[in-house]
C-alpha cells in the first residue's frame, strides 16, 4: 500500500527491511478492523452476541441493521469506549483492550449525537481536538484549513457551532475526526436526522475521502439505500451478524426478483398464484407481492395463465430490504417497530456512561 511504503522508506531508507516483530504492520497485515467473538452483555441482555469480522484497509464497510441491533455497542467496543464482555478486537493493528491509547490515536469518531461544543467556534473545537490528540502545534493551522475546506466550512471557521445547521455540524464532526489523520474513521449513523440533500452531500465527502485518502471507513446505518455505497456490508440483527458480503452479492443471494401486481381481485390472485404457480404471495404496499427467480420471464406466463385480469405489474431487482427480509423474515422497519426501541434507548444509555 501506498502509505505504508512511504512510511518504511521514510523511516529506514529505501532498503527493503523485514518489519520488526513489534510493529503494527506485522500484527494485522491488511486488516484495519478485526473482531473475534466480540460480545457485550448488560445484565441479562445480550446486546452484541459473538461478532466476527475483518475489514480490509481502505475499504468502506457498512454495518446495517435496525435500531437496537447492537451496531452502536459494537462500534463502542471497537473504539475502546465499551469494555467487551468476551472476545477480542483490534483496530489499525492495535488491541482494543490492551492498547487503548494507540487505538484512539489511530481512529476518528463521528457519533450519532453531536459531540461538539456549541459555545465554541468551529476552529476552537478543532484546536481543542488537536491539543487533546497531542498534534504538533506547527501542523495545526495547515491541517485545520485542509479538513475544513474538505467539508466546505473553512469560511465559517470563526462562527459559533451553535449557529450551525445539523448538516454543518455533522460535516464539522467529520472534519474534526480527520484532524489527527486517523487510519480508520468510525461513523455511527452519520446521516441520521438529516434531510436528503445533506445526506447526499455527506456521502459525497465520504466517497471523496475513500477515493483519495488512505483511510478505512467503518459506518453504521439503518438506511438501506445508504448501505449500497459501501464496499461490503454486514447485516446485524439481535446482536449477531447474519450476512456479510458486497451489496451485489447479498442481493444476488436472495435469488429472486420482487414482482408486484395489481389485479381486479387480489384475494383470488393470491389463491391462483398458489395453485397454479406454487408461489406464496402477500399484500405489500397495496399490491400483491411475491418473489420469483427471473421475474421478467415469469411475467408473460403470469398474463397467460393467471386467469384474473391484471391492471399493472412491476418487477424489481432485490434491494437490500429484500436481503434483510430474506435473512430475518421481516423488514427493517418491522424490526424497529417492536422491542427495538427501548432496547436502543437502553444501549444508548449504557454507551453514554
Amino acid at each position, binding site marked *: 500500500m*501506498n*502509505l505504508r511504503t*512511504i*512510511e518504511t522508506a*521514510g*523511516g529506514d531508507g529505501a532498503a527493503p527491511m523485514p518489519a520488526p516483530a513489534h510493529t503494527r504492520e506485522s500484527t494485522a497485515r491488511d486488516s484495519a478492523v478485526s473482531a473475534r467473538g466480540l460480545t457485550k452483555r448488560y445484565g441479562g441482555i445480550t446486546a452484541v452476541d459473538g461478532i466476527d469480522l475483518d475489514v480490509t484497509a481502505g475499504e468502506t464497510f457498512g454495518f446495517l441493521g435496525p435500531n437496537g441491533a447492537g451496531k452502536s455497542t459494537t462500534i463502542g467496543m471497537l*473504539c*475502546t*469506549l*465499551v*469494555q467487551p464482555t468476551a472476545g477480542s478486537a483490534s483496530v489499525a493493528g492495535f488491541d482494543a483492550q490492551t492498547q*487503548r*491509547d*494507540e487505538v*484512539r*490515536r489511530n481512529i476518528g*469518531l463521528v*457519533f450519532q*449525537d*453531536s*459531540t*461538539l*461544543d*456549541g*459555545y*465554541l467556534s468551529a476552529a*476552537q473545537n478543532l*484546536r*481543542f*481536538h488537536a*491539543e*487533546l*490528540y*497531542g498534534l*504538533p502545534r506547527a*501542523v495545526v493551522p*495547515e*491541517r485545520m484549513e*485542509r*479538513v475544513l475546506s*474538505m467539508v466546505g466550512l473553512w469560511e465559517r471557521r470563526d462562527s459559533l457551532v451553535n449557529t450551525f445547521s445539523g448538516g454543518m455540524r455533522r460535516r464539522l464532526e467529520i472534519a474534526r475526526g*480527520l484532524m*489527527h*489523520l486517523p487510519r480508520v474513521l468510525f461513523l455511527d449513523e452519520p446521516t441520521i436526522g438529516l434531510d436528503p440533500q445533506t445526506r447526499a452531500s455527506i456521502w459525497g465527502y465520504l466517497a*471523496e*475521502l475513500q477515493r*483519495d*485518502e*488512505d*483511510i478505512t471507513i467503518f459506518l453504521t446505518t439503518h438506511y438501506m439505500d445508504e448501505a449500497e455505497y459501501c464496499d461490503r456490508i454486514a447485516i446485524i440483527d439481535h446482536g449477531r451478524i447474519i450476512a456479510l458480503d458486497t451489496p451485489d452479492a447479498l442481493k444476488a443471494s436472495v435469488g429472486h426478483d420482487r414482482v408486484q401486481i395489481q389485479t381486479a381481485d387480489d384475494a383470488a390472485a393470491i389463491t391462483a398464484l398458489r395453485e397454479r404457480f406454487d408461489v406464496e404471495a402477500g399484500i405489500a404496499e397495496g399490491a400483491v407481492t411475491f418473489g420469483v427467480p427471473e421475474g421478467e420471464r415469469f411475467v408473460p406466463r403470469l398474463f397467460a395463465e393467471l386467469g384474473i385480469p391484471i391492471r399493472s405489474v412491476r418487477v424489481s431487482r432485490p434491494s437490500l430490504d429484500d436481503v434483510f427480509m430474506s435473512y430475518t423474515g421481516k423488514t427493517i422497519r418491522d424490526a424497529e417497530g417492536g422491542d427495538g426501541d427501548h432496547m436502543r434507548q437502553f444501549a444508548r444509555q449504557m454507551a*453514554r*456512561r
Partner: protein
Amino acid sequence: MATGIRALRRTAPEQAPSRLVQDLRAVRVVWTRELIRFANDRMRIVTSLIQPVLYLFVLGTGLSSLTGVTSSGSVSLRTFMFPGVLGLSVQFTAMFSAASIVWDREFGFLREMLVAPVSRTAIVLGKCLGGASVAAFQGAILIVLAGANGVPYNPALILELIGMLMVLAFAMTAFGVMMAARVRTIQSFMGLSQLVLMPMFFLSGALYPLANLPAWLVVLTRINPLTYAVDPLRRAVFAHVDAGPLAARFGGGVTWFGWTVPVWIEVAVVLSMGLAMLGVAIAQFRRAD
C-alpha cells in the same frame, strides 16, 4: 482533494508525544476551554454577582438593626458578613462550574474528551482547575466591594483573601466534579447541589459567629468543611480592621474542644478535603466505561 490527509501524512510523520506531555497539554486545553466559555458568557458573570450583593447590602443592612450592633469604629455587621459572602460566592460559582461536566455529558462533548488518547485524570484535573479559576476570579471581583463594608484595601489582606479563595474554589470544584461523575442530567445536578450547598452555607459560620452555639450546632459546624474556609477569611479581615470590643465576639476562630485551631490547619483541612474529593472524582471517571 488529492492533497488531503494522505499528503499531510507524508509531510508530517506522526510521532506520539510522551504520555506526560500529552496529559499536561490535555489539562491545559480543558482548563482553557472553561475560561473561554466563562469569558464568552457575560450573563453568567453578571448574575453570579447579584446574589452576594443581595446578601451583603440587603440582608446585611437589614439584620444590622435587629442585632443592635450597628457599628463599632469602622466595623458593622456587614464587615462580619463580608468574608462569609465571599465564601458563599466562591462556593456557588465553583459548584456551577462543576455542573459543566454534567452539561458536557448531556450535550455529548464529554465523549469527545473521554475518547481522546489522554488519561481521564488529566481531563478531571483540567476541569477542576478551570472551574476553580473561574470561581476564584468571581470571588476576587467581589473584593472590590470591601470598602463599602468597612474592610480596608490592604494589599497584604487582599492577597491573603485571594489565596484562601483559590483553595476554597479548588476544593468546592473538586466536590462538584465528584458529584457530577454520577449524575446524568443537569436538573438532578442542580437539585442535588442546592441540597448540599444551602446546609453547608448555613452551617459554615458565614452568617453568625461560631462561639457560644448550642452543642448540636457546634458539632455540625465543626464537621462542615466550609467552616474552615470561611474562618480564615474572617480572621484575615479582622486582623486588618479596628473592631474594638467586637473583635472577640466576631473576629472568628474555630475551636476544637476549647482549642483554637490555627489558620494553617484550617487551610490544610480544606486543601486535603479538596484533594480527597479530586481523588474520588478521578477514580469514578476512570472506572466509568
